[in-house]
């Protein structure tokens, strides 16, 4: 399979060439959304709702606006928010991408701002249409995985099948990211045993202990009512199922949101904030996790669901894996792969793993996922706070 990507100035390559329309405070969200409406295939809304400054949010927006799948950026500012739009515009301009900042308070109002933004987006999409393409290999890819709406079937079908696909991708030189340390509680020792070095093993364990303490303070685990409806009884049961997505490769490193894997291999993303509990739950919904993996460069996300999620994402395609045949029947128009066939004896874990691997390659080559073709571009970014990763976290 020949993948034709988009070369970026930092050496990375993209599999899409999207115009990101980024609101810098919730007050600019409506204008940003209206700007993209006539151009929904080529322009996606991302943004940060808060008016208070946040180092993490600034870094995330800088990473997302220079994501390899992004070809140009329109920043939509109300004008009085605390977000450092000057720095963000500089970072995007330095990457060689077309960028423009639209300040609503200086634009004559909602209607004028929307019109100016739509004009810029239309011209930019036309300009991007003849962007040069370059050959791209599987080893140029960063792939994330998430499970959402999990149930008792996720951990025996879709998650281990994704683990098989991850094994093949890592073998092909890709960087693969699994995450949600709050859903690895109970798995810390078996996971640490797969670390490339003893020092990394300590970091992996510490990340899960941190998650345990954090969720303990909050009083809830990373566990929704629907998980219990689907037969999952405890967070540690959910964890064991979620952990299966990581496959069996050696764990090469531990990253935090926005850290870009320096080479191929399997990485754990530590998504639980550092320091005292602030700003509430670490990831308030599945898209928060997808956004963080995109900020670390994920070109696409493999999303396993048992209860049945329909979400996609702005910027980077989402492949959805149905974990059981009943849900697949209900939501087949949203599901890319039916891993529920494993329960019926119609396919093995290896066969579904191979299907996922092949679909990843086709999506990288331009094939639309179900959520892409349905126009899903969910996005959410909230407040967090992180310390930098330690010296033992990355492969040398």
């Amino acid at each position, binding site marked *: 399979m020949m993948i034709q990507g988009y070369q970026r100035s930092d050496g990375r390559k993209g599999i899409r060439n999207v115009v990101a329309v980024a609101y810098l405070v919730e007050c600019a969200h409506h204008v940003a959304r209206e700007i993209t409406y006539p151009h929904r295939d080529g322009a996606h809304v991302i943004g940060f709702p808060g008016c208070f400054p946040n180092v993490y949010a600034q870094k995330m927006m800088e990473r997302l606006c220079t994501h390899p799948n992004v070809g140009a950026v329109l920043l939509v500012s109300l004008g009085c928010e605390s977000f450092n739009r000057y720095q963000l515009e500089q970072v995007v301009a330095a990457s060689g991408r077309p960028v423009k900042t639209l300040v609503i308070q200086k634009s004559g109002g909602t209607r004028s701002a929307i019109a100016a933004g739509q004009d810029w987006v239309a011209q930019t999409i036309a300009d991007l249409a003849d962007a040069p393409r370059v050959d791209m290999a599987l080893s140029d890819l960063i792939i994330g995985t998430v499970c959402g709406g999990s149930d*008792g079937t996720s951990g*025996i079908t879709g998650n281990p099948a994704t683990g098989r696909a991850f094994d093949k991708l890592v073998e092909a030189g890709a960087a693969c990211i699994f995450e949600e340390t709050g859903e690895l509680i*109970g798995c810390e020792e078996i996971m640490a045993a797969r670390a490339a070095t003893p020092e990394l093993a300590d970091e992996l364990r510490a990340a899960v202990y941190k998650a345990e303490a954090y*969720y*303990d303070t909050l009083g809830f685990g990373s566990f929704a009512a629907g998980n219990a409806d689907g*037969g999952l*009884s405890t967070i*540690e049961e959910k964890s064991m199922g979620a952990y299966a997505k990581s496959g069996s490769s050696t764990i090469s490193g531990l990253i935090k949101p926005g850290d870009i894997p320096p080479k191929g291999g399997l990485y754990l993303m530590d998504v639980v904030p550092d320091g005292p509990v602030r700003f509430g739950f670490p990831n308030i919904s599945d898209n928060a996790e997808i956004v963080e993996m995109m900020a670390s460069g994920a070109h696409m996300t493999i999303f396993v669901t048992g209860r049945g999620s329909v979400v996609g994402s702005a910027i980077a395609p989402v492949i959805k894996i149905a974990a059981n045949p009943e849900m697949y029947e209900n939501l087949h128009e949203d599901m890319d792969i039916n891993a529920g066939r494993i329960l019926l004896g119609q396919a093995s874990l290896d066969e579904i793993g191979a299907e996922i691997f092949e679909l990843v390659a086709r999506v990288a080559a331009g094939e639309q996922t179900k959520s892409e073709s349905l126009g899903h571009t969910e996005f959410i970014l909230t407040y967090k706070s992180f310390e930098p990763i330690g010296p033992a976290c990355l492969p040398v």
Partner: protein
Amino acid sequence: MRNDSRLLILHPDDNIAVICQPIKAGEVYQLDGATLTMPATIGLGHKIARRAIAMDEPILKYGVPIGLATAPIAPGAHVHIHNMRSGYTPTVSLEAARAAHEGGK
């Protein structure tokens, strides 16, 4: 006798089996040499006990503890939040709210 193919035993040490294809209430099935009757229609992905489990005994799935029994559990019984708990954080469920809602209709 072979175990019912609608049940999945993920690890030999496990004291639960996972329902991977529907078994209706009242249906008879084979598990670990015993002939058992399904007590209620239990959804895909849910767990039933392979053997008697004592109060406070770990529930083993994938060969590892996934929580503790909060009551004695009989072979073939549904193992879920009504008779087990996490060793870490409590489990959130809307079962009580749903029962109240449906009871009021």
